């Protein structure tokens, strides 16, 4: 009766209907436009030298080669550090940062979410929420001063520690842990579990989507970080591949165009694959992201 007015579910439809065509008509061209620069980049990486500087420029590589990739791996920095060393540095730093950050974030977010009875937690959560707006470039100099004072110049710690201070990770994780029922924790406590056991046995298994999201966000920021290599690290052997390609691009843009394109593609692909694999977890975390 009255319900017949409701024409079925419109948001998140289960099946295709003709009135969805108009949305595809708007979305597909926009999506193509967004992806076009990335597609162009892929093709740059596979173009032989002649084609890179051809006129008129081509969007799609006509005779794709792996030459640029080969040259990239044979490349070495001004001080003779091979490119693969930079790559290994990046992988090492990113791996350590992601693993450390997951544990530190879950631990802190658990306390912020479930230990509201201690005054310091409420107070710290609102400070952290304010820090979501933090723009690190704005305080590059004070961060440098901190690194110097702590004696971290030219150490791996200078790469890793500043990256772990990531307010958005704490924020998302805390919102997610809020939904873990208190009764469950209460039961565990009554059975004699301490906070560490509760985190290991209850919180970690129940917040996998949020853990995945924090891992992705950390990965993205660590993988593409240049702040440490630019400012905190002086010896070449400890710098990252991202820094190296950046320098190559600014100092020698013409000669290295194809190589830089190949490099950016290699750096982009892990990012893309990880996101595709985890996108459903990211989406379920994001539904908890509201700021009230």
């Amino acid at each position, binding site marked *: 009766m009255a319900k017949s007015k409701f024409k079925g579910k419109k948001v998140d439809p289960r099946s295709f209907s003709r009135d969805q065509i108009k949305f595809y008509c708007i979305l597909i061209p926009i999506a193509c436009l967004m992806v076009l620069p990335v597609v162009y980049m892929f093709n740059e990486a596979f173009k032989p030298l002649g084609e890179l500087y051809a006129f008129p420029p081509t969007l799609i590589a006509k005779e794709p080669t792996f030459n640029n990739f080969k040259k990239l791996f044979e490349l070495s920095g001004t001080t003779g550090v091979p490119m693969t060393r930079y790559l290994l540095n990046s992988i090492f730093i990113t791996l350590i940062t992601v693993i450390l950050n997951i544990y530190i974030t879950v631990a802190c977010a658990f306390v912020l979410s479930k230990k509201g009875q201690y005054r310091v937690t409420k107070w710290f959560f609102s400070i952290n929420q304010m820090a979501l707006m933090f723009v690190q*470039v704005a305080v590059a100099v004070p961060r440098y001063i901190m690194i110097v004072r702590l004696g971290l110049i030219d150490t791996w710690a200078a790469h890793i520690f*500043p990256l772990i201070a990531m307010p958005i990770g704490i924020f998302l994780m805390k919102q997610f842990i809020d939904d873990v029922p208190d009764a469950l924790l209460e039961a565990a406590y009554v059975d004699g579990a301490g906070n560490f056991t509760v985190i290991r046995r209850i919180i970690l298994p129940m917040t996998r989507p949020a853990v995945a999201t924090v891992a992705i966000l950390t990965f993205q920021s660590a993988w593409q970080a240049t702040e440490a290599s630019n400012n905190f690290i002086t010896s070449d052997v400890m710098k990252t591949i991202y820094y190296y390609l950046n320098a190559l691009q600014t100092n020698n843009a013409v000669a290295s165009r194809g190589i830089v394109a190949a490099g950016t593609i290699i750096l982009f692909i892990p990012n893309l694959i990880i996101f595709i694999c985890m996108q459903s977890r990211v989406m379920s975390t994001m539904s908890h992201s509201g700021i009230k």
Partner: protein
Amino acid sequence: MKALTKKRYRRVNRREDYLTSMLLLLPYLLLFSLFIAIPVLIAIGLSFTYFDVIKTPELVGVSNYIALLTQDEIFLKYIIPNTFKYALIVGPGGCILSFVLAWLVTQIQAVPRTILTLCLYMPSMVGSLMIQVVWKTIFSGDQRGLLNAFLLSRGWIDSPVSWLLSPEYLLTIMILVALWQAMGIGFLAMIAGILNVNEELYEAAYVDGMKNRFQEVVYITIPSMKPQMMFSAVMAIVNAFNTGWIGPALAGSNPTPDYSGNLILNHIEDYAFSRYEMGYAAAISVVLLLMIAFFSKVAGKLFTEKD
């Protein structure tokens, strides 16, 4: 009986619980203080000094701020208008674009939605390096630049335009690039927010005489997802300021021609790393942080629920 055990448990373990809680909080608290909180405090402190890295900072009161707001011609004439124009378009623009696109993708089925979402999200994860390389080649000033070649072949221009070196185009291009990669994590939050709106609300509204999708959006969707909107707005503002480095990267020089692409971030860099006037640079940083806080406050006024 149960209440009794609980009570006893509480008495015995309260101390232990407090200690382990603080222990768990400690690592992040420490790193947060060292690399976010204290640097901000140092910036505020330094902004009242003259500091050239070599000598110890010398207290000069508010003269840095006075100089910045009255004598720094470049700051007043170029940096401030550029930054406001850029931030006002990229911030709200990015937010609106995210919402519209997020709404559009939620109107279709799950599988094509995932693919299209990925396409729209992709630019925000390509990283600073690819942004530079790709847009530099597209807007390259000679005839081999993609845009120039396209316009030349159509006969719309007679000679190649050096897009990135002309003051009249640079800021527009920066805004375009920033909007291109504005569909980041805030966009994902919006999609999740729209999908999470309680279905019964729509049903009830249709019973009450709601007629079309436009009304759906205005009366149900937006009011139900204000917290996600707030999150996205904050992300959009931060993103707008974070992408401000791009001007000099595209133009290949800092300052950019006629300062046309210099935003407040570049001004900080200029004073901190080229002129080593750290006190002055810190004062600019503080102004920037205040600006971001102000924009977020405005967003908060718009999106937080009134009780």
